[in-house]
């Protein structure tokens, strides 16, 4: 086992896949010479060269469209959108082209592309640079959307995404790059579309992913001291969504809290809660509670921003409510 950061895990996955498969190449803004705005591709340019680590103009539609085209003709591009906030400028290519081309043409087109991007708030970057619109992308059949919460999952999922023949949106979190975790040595992949129990418990189920996992685990440690054993289910994939472990846990604990950084309205929690009620209504001893961001654009001021974002205390309060 290696004990590395999320950044290192993602970087390693990319590096190893590029070494392994010459059709894998990276394109995006500042990925090459700059080394990546989050330093994920630091060192890549010198090693792999400008053809395989391709700096692009500021042209998100061009980046994603370009990745689509390259994928169509047999390459495995890993496009980077500097932040998920900029993904909107490529919305058509992500949800209208990448998600649909394989289907619309009767399976003739294969799109083995990955779009890596970064979401989340908490760094006082203002409303347009701080969003977590994951649920929007997870809405579209034809696209796969993953968002790891641990370095081990990040490395395994990115490898799976790159090796997948489907378009995968790989969502990283801006404030989790330095999170450390154990990562298996050697080559391994983590399957896309599988949830994982990150912490076993019997009193209440927390369903979460990405940054939500971090605060949920902290809340669970606190709750354990009070004698409450929380079971934390990490979704890891938003589409395909694996409800198996979630429902199994819910049938055991009869109460659930969904923790996400996006907004509550029309968010991930709305989907999870619905599916819990559809499949396990008679096991519910309390309504499913959702912890999410306040329904406001995220402000610059630090206190206000932190107040709007879900914190450990919010998770604690929600768990206590359902107990």
């Amino acid at each position, binding site marked *: 086992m290696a004990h590395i950061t999320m950044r290192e895990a993602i970087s390693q996955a990319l590096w190893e896949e590029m070494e392994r498969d010459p059709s894998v190449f990276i394109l995006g803004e500042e990925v090459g010479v700059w080394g990546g705005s989050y330093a994920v591709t630091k060192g890549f340019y010198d090693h792999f060269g400008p053809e395989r680590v391709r700096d692009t103009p500021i*042209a998100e*539609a*061009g980046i994603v*469209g370009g990745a689509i*085209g390259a994928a169509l003709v047999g390459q495995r591009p890993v496009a980077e959108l500097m932040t998920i906030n900029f993904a909107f400028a490529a919305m058509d290519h992500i949800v209208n082209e990448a998600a649909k081309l*394989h289907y*619309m043409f009767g*399976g003739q087109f294969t799109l083995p592309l990955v779009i890596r991007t970064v979401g989340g708030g908490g760094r006082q970057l203002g409303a347009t640079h701080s969003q977590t619109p994951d649920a929007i992308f997870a809405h579209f059949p034809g696209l796969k959307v993953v968002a790891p919460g641990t370095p081990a999952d990040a490395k395994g999922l990115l490898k799976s995404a790159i090796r997948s023949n489907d378009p995968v949106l790989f969502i990283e979190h801006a404030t989790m790059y330095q999170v450390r975790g154990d990562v298996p040595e050697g080559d391994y992949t983590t399957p896309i579309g599988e949830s994982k129990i990150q912490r076993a418990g019997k009193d209440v189920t927390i369903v979460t992913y990405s940054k939500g996992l971090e605060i949920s685990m902290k809340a669970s440690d606190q709750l354990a001291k009070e004698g409450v054993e929380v079971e934390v289910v990490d979704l890891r994939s938003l589409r395909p969504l694996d409800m198996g472990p979630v429902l199994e846990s819910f049938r055991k604990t009869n109460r659930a809290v969904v923790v996400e950084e996006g907004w509550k309205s029309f968010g991930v929690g709305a989907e999870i809660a619905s599916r819990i009620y559809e499949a396990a209504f008679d096991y519910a001893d309390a309504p499913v509670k959702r912890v999410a961001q306040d329904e406001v654009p995220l402000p610059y001021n630090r206190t206000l921003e932190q107040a709007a974002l879900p914190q450990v205390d919010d998770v604690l309060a929600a768990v206590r409510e359902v107990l």
Partner: protein
Amino acid sequence: MNKKEMLELYHEMVLIRRLEERGAELYQQGKIGGFMHLYIGQEAVCTGLIAARQPNDRVITAYRDHGVAISCGISANEVMAELLGKATGTSRGKGGSMHMADTKRNFWGGHAIVGAHLPIAMGMALGDAYANRNNVIICMFGEGATNIGFFHEAVNMSKVWNLPVLWVCENNVYGMGTAVERASAVSSIATKARGYDMPSERADGMDVLHVYQAAKKAIEAVRAGNGPFLLELTTYRFRGHSMGDPERYRKQDEVKKWEQSDPIGIYRGYLLENKIAGVKALDEVDDLATHEVEKAVQFAEASPEPTLEALYENVYADG
């Protein structure tokens, strides 16, 4: 080109014309649904352009794609079956009029979001260049698409990276109901290439041989590694933007005037004048084309609908 090849160009244009006319009838009978954009009047563009390509050159276009499909070598049967939504269609009935494709014949669709396929075309060129293949991407689009951001991003990137893309603008004067001078800062699209320091040319899209010659030159220039090229072909669509277009934005006088320049008529005249073919031979080709289209309609009508299971097929490649 030899006589046979030249006659084949005529056949292709007439086939496309008959296909479109028959398609319009079927649409009005309610057998074709959704949107349908007819290529009538523009036949010389796809015919001349694609005749100039090598088989390994890729073609991608927007939604006015039936003629392009035929020129790429897809049978009238498959085109008609796709129009009727049958399982034997180019896209197994899942795409419809706007989304025909056949990767085996290097036809990459059939795209409905205006301008969105341009970055994809640029990407295909990127991918081919990455693999050191020596092919050209022929990307067709209307003049309306040159005003959307995707055009700028794609063309710019193709030039920055020196990619082998032939940008072909079919300037048929109208972007839906908006004439080019109302929508674009410059009405001659070839002019826009200057903004990218990209070579360009403007040719008469109603004359199939002019198109062929201009295309041949441009394709080879691109293949030679000179980077992207913008070829503007001026043309005109004799029918509306799509079925059901009441055409309030243009006068019928204008349409009639352009119909004098019917590409099929022009080429027919050329063949007769230069004694490449006689009236009888050309009439036979006309009849053959009509017959082919009828067989295509029969094929399509007799073909099965996709099964209900097909609804869930091909959402993902990996499942």
